[in-house]
């Protein structure tokens, strides 16, 4: 592997890479207690750093406070503004309230399954954070199959949701559980296919190497495969139960889906970890499609972990935005969309990327400008494919106009002649 400017220096105060200060602490630990102490201290540093820099502020203040505040603004209301300055302590007040609430168990519930479900739900959400690179050296576990790991961990909550729905002894919960299983099975396929495309391009499953690839070639994967990002976003929304596809906990239809019978902190765990999953997905999208901590060389001056967090926030805002504006699809429409539309598109995307990768490898093209060319081609092909496939499926946009007809006189049925159009 070529020599890389990894920002690692001997100056512990160099905040561009927090591993400098971590290394300093480790050296200190080694001097005091030898290798053993250093071995124990290192994961603690990683966890504390990730927790203090990322999870705590993001989870609490973007996930809970920010989401409520932003959606509040979208709905022309204030959002939380009572607890603490600007309502910033609202998440803490929420947690206190949840902890003091009665944890209700319905009669006839399967207690073991029902009580285990939140725990099963929480663990993978925390584990997902382990493989995310915050900077050139700032990753807790740079495992070589991180993409596979992400897919495995991200499908875990389905089991927990199904346990919750099954154990609650409630028909609404059962509805929600069945829906989420059906949905995840459908959406996992296009999700895997688009991630496979990115793996084919970069030739690695390690997230850190993916970032290096994007940094070396001076291009983000979103420019090479824009349709992959769209599919990733929709599929992840479906897996995470975010509007417009929050079908499994559809509030207006099945009360709260698999969460109907949950209360207190059991519910709080589900709620908090939903945000954690959404954040982890935003992290993956930022890493895979938006160049992670790199920004075309700017990471030499701006601390890369700040760049990364900004990207994550920007992507997470998309989740909030769609939640604040879009209605919900019906389950059969969602399935149809996955199998009839997203799956062929994802397969086409994978095919194109594989061919392009083959061209680059076989022709031994060194210049990275070729990827911009391929990106343009992919964009055009994707647009044509979406348009053409919609036509094949018989989709028509303007069957009926969006304004009603206006009449002056009353009396009887007025037949509609569609050839004349509205008004």
């Amino acid at each position, binding site marked *: 592997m070529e020599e890389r400017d990894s920002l690692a220096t001997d100056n512990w105060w160099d905040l561009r890479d927090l591993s400098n200060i971590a290394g300093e602490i480790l050296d200190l630990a080694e001097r005091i207690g030898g290798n053993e102490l250093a071995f124990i201290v290192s994961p603690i540093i990683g966890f504390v750093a990730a927790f203090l820099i990322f999870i705590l502020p993001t989870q609490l203040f973007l996930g809970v406070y920010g989401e409520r505040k932003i*959606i509040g603004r*979208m*709905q*022309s*209301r204030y959002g939380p503004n009572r607890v603490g300055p600007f309502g910033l302590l609202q998440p803490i007040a929420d947690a206190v309230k949840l902890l003091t609430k009665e944890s209700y168990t319905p009669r006839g519930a399967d207690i073991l399954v029902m009580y285990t479900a939140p725990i099963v739900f929480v663990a993978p959400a925390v584990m997902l954070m382990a493989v995310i690179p915050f900077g050139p050296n700032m990753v807790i576990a740079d495992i070589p199959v991180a993409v596979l790991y992400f897919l495995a961990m991200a499908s875990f909550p389905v089991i927990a949701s199904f346990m919750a729905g099954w154990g609650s002894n409630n*028909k*609404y919960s059962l*509805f929600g559980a069945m829906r989420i299983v059906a949905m995840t099975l459908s959406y996992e396929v296009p999700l895997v296919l688009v991630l496979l495309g990115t793996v084919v391009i970069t030739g690695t499953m390690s997230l850190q190497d993916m970032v290096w690839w994007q940094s070396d070639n001076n291009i983000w994967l979103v420019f090479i495969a824009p349709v992959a990002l769209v599919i990733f976003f929709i599929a992840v929304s479906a897996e995470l139960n975010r*509007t*417009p596809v*929050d*079908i499994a906990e*559809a*509030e*207006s*239809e*099945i*009360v709260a889906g698999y969460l109907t019978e949950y209360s207190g902190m059991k519910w709080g765990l589900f709620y908090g970890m939903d945000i954690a999953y959404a954040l982890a997905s935003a992290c993956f999208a930022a890493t895979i499609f938006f160049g992670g901590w790199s920004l075309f060389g700017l990471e030499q001056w701006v601390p890369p972990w700040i760049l990364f967090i900004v990207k994550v926030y920007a992507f997470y805002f998309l989740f909030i935005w769609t*939640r*604040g*504006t*879009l*209605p*919900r*699809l*019906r*389950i*059969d*429409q969602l399935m149809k969309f996955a199998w009839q539309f997203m799956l062929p598109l994802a397969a086409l995307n994978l095919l194109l990327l594989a061919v392009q990768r083959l061209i680059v490898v076989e022709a031994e093209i060194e210049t990275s400008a070729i990827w911009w060319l391929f990106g343009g081609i992919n964009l055009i092909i994707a647009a044509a494919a979406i348009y053409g496939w919609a036509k094949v499926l018989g989709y028509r946009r303007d*069957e*009926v*106009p*969006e*304004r*009603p*007809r*206006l*009449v*002056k*006189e*009353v*009396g*009887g*049925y*007025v*037949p*509609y002649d569609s050839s004349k159009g509205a008004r």
Partner: protein
Amino acid sequence: MSNFVHGEPFVINIGPQHPSTHGVFRIKATVDGEQITEAEMVMGYLHRSMEKLAEERTYTQNIPFTDRTDYLSSMANNLGYCLAVEKLAGIDVPERGDAIRVIMAELQRLASHCMAVGAFANDTGAWQTPVMWSFREREKILDLFEMTCGARLTCNYMRIGGVAFDLPEGFVEKTREIMASFPAFLDEMEGLLSGNEIFITRSRNVGTLPPESAISSSLSGPMLRASGVAWDLRRADPYCGYEKYDFDIPIGYNGDCYDRFIVRLEEMRQSVNIVNQALDSLPGGPHSTEVPLSLRPPAGEAYARVEGSRGELGYYLVSDGGPAPFRFHIRPPSFINLSALREMTVGGSVADAIVVLGSIDVVVGEIDR
């Protein structure tokens, strides 16, 4: 919806405690997977025996009862009842009283349709945003009501022979201001929902009611108009001088939930139009005629109907010459409109049933009375 996998059917209660039954209403649905194979409507959870109670009270004392049937359009209910009593007793209303009644009825229609449109969007799953926007506008209209009669929801403003008070100072200016800004809200709503692909997918061709069914189920109001039937009591049987105002009747195309939504939006535009016209031509003079405190209409019967926000709102009164009505009966539009629910939901999915119920725009206080 025939492509569902079939399994063992089971009964699921949608309501009486459910976020989107718009009150305490219950659909006892037999579902096969997601598909509803049988639906039974259960109502009566909010029954307060208003029609019987009204027989024990004088004609004027009954006006507050009418507020509490359809609590989202109390002005229209007041109006319907007062028209029925006036018809029974042969009382004339001064011109200014009529104009004020028209203004109030149309403002009430705006407020009620705001609620209908927002709640319907909420039922399709648009997480609270449309409903909050609607409520923002509805608040302004409720402020106008508060200004006029002190109450926001249960107004108790109409009186036999006119209205309780004259319009307060500054009402006309404030109403004009709100009416000027109202179409912007409607455009905003159309921008958010009317062209939204997901919204269209969810509501178009869902709960379709052909015009024959709509007429034979005796539907009225936006439900009937969405099915393509041009029928509006303000035109067909004008009251309170509606024949003086120029407005259009919006009608839908094939009677699905989407049509009901766009018909309601367009009706709001027309209502803004009517309010503006009524404000322009607001006559002077008294707002009410003198009516004896203990009104004893001659023996007989009367039926008066108005175009309420949900359809034909009728009041049927029988007098035996005494101070209280001998029989007091309401024809509530949502109750009659609800009779088409079974036809629209059976065969669809649970999610569709919620959307259909939202598109009917039921008020349970009116159904159970």
